[in-house]
């Protein structure tokens, strides 16, 4: 299914391309392919890199003359490389700081994290403080936050995952202070764990959380600071536990650079963005 969803629009796109190039007079066709030739280097955030790499793959398949090289190394490398001109485009998985305003940022997607509980759990609301206390084991029974008398199963993400980074960053948690009962890899595993354990608490990418909750998985998403956890609230900027995924450039983008950034923000790649549980930019 997953493959089909990805392949169908891709193949339609390819066929459309092929038809177009057939329809055009030969000289126009060569002209357009001449224009789109060359190499782009992207470096930076390891959160943005997989998404950028998928977008780059589709872009290359539509423009055979173009090569796009995507390298990771963290957001700060993205900023540094874009500034020094080592990379054509930097990848940064946060808003630019005030000291970085000399760069131009283009948001290609948003990332959000939602806290999830089992549907059988009567708790409807947790304050930020309560979530921090649960994750640092100061609260270890649901009774203490208005639930049943049952021990809390704390589900955490593996070290290095960007969801953990975003979660810890928002709640000012040090990852070494988190006391977990279960450590998971991908979002799906977290959702399955919470669905099977009425006393578990976890946090997952908001895209996969909302998909699970609306597709008969017995989980619920908790509001953060009174804002409902939903993709809509992430894309309109209201949800606090979210961040933009940015492409940054030193100067106003031109040529191939501009073409690729426009492509990465266009409707043509929204399926890739959703596939990786990121939130597409509102257009």
């Amino acid at each position: 299914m997953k493959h089909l969803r990805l392949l169908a629009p891709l193949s339609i796109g390819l066929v459309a391309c092929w038809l177009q190039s057939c329809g055009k007079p030969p000289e126009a066709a060569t002209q357009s392919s001449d224009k789109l030739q060359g190499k782009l280097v992207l470096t930076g955030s390891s959160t943005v890199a997989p998404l950028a790499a998928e977008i780059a793959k589709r872009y290359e398949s539509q423009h055979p003359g173009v090569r796009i090289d995507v390298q990771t190394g963290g957001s700060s490398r993205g900023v540094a490389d874009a500034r020094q001109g080592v990379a054509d485009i930097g990848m940064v998985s946060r808003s630019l700081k005030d000291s970085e305003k000399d760069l131009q940022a283009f948001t290609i997607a948003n990332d959000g994290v939602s806290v999830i509980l089992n549907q059988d759990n009567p708790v409807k609301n947790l304050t930020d403080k309560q979530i921090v206390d649960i994750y640092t084991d100061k609260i270890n029974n649901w009774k203490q936050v208005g639930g049943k008398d049952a021990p809390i199963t704390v589900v955490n993400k593996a070290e290095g995952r960007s969801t953990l980074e975003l979660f810890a960053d928002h709640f000012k948690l040090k990852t070494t202070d988190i006391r977990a009962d279960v450590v998971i890899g991908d979002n799906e595993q977290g959702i399955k764990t919470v669905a099977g354990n009425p006393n578990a608490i976890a946090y997952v990418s908001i895209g996969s959380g909302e998909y699970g909750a609306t597709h008969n998985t017995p989980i619920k998403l908790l509001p953060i600071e009174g804002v409902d956890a939903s993709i809509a609230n992430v894309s309109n900027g209201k949800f606090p536990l979210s961040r933009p995924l940015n492409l940054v450039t030193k100067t106003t983008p031109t040529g191939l650079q501009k073409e690729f950034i426009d492509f990465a923000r266009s409707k043509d790649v929204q399926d890739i963005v959703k596939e990786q549980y990121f939130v597409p930019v509102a257009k």
Partner: protein
Amino acid sequence: MSQSRNEVILVWMLRGMAIISGAIALVILLFLIWETLPFLQNIGLTRFFNDPSWHPVSEEFNLMPMLWGSLFVTAGSVLVATPLGILSAVFCHYYAPPALAKIYRSLIELLAGIPSVVYGFWGLVVLVPIIGRIHPPGPSLFAGILILTLMILPTIALVADATFANVSADYLRGATALGLGRWAMVRGVVFPAAKSGLLTGVILETGRAIGETMAVLMVCGNVVQVPKGVFEPVRTLTANIALEMAYAVGNHRAALFVSGLILMAMIVVLVIAAETINQGHLYD
């Protein structure tokens, strides 16, 4: 006797193929060592034992909890699966009617063919919630041992079965002639004669248990700690690699390659043990 031209070509082709097959293992080993070298030079091997914990993003690299996790899960499942597998093979060979034995054998083969991720998925959505009701949180060393037992059971059962088939019929006739009962024959004649084959089976299942990743990752809980009880979550070396590889860079990535190298060393020890045991010929 001179070989025909075709035969010479065939022999050279076979030599080539053999070299390629052997070289693959060597290349992988060299690659692992190459990837870990910078880490061993910059940070050193002792950090794997002396660091406070495993938080590679904050440069803490204690691998011991994972090593213990791997050992406990493997030892537990081998201890449970070995008697189960051997005794079920005994039943199939010496007690069951032939028709039943045939059905039983194909069932075991079916068990061997189920992909590990299916076992893991079943464990995550069925087994772990059940364990969680008895003794929360659920994902635990216990769940890992149960799932792994299921997965390595076919290995030992099928190897034991094949080993029993190899025991010389003369021994069995001799035992019958002495008036031994069936169980006395199995215990006194078959087991000693099949010893090396059964040990090979144990080593094969141990190798499979150490290397298993997906299922263990899904049911063990993956908390970095040395477990104090069977219901506590553990993380194995394989799960450690699978969990963190996608997001690891720099020293973190190299540390994961060291986990891989440790796993490889464990397997090498097992293979050597298996080879040594097989040197003793029992059937001549």
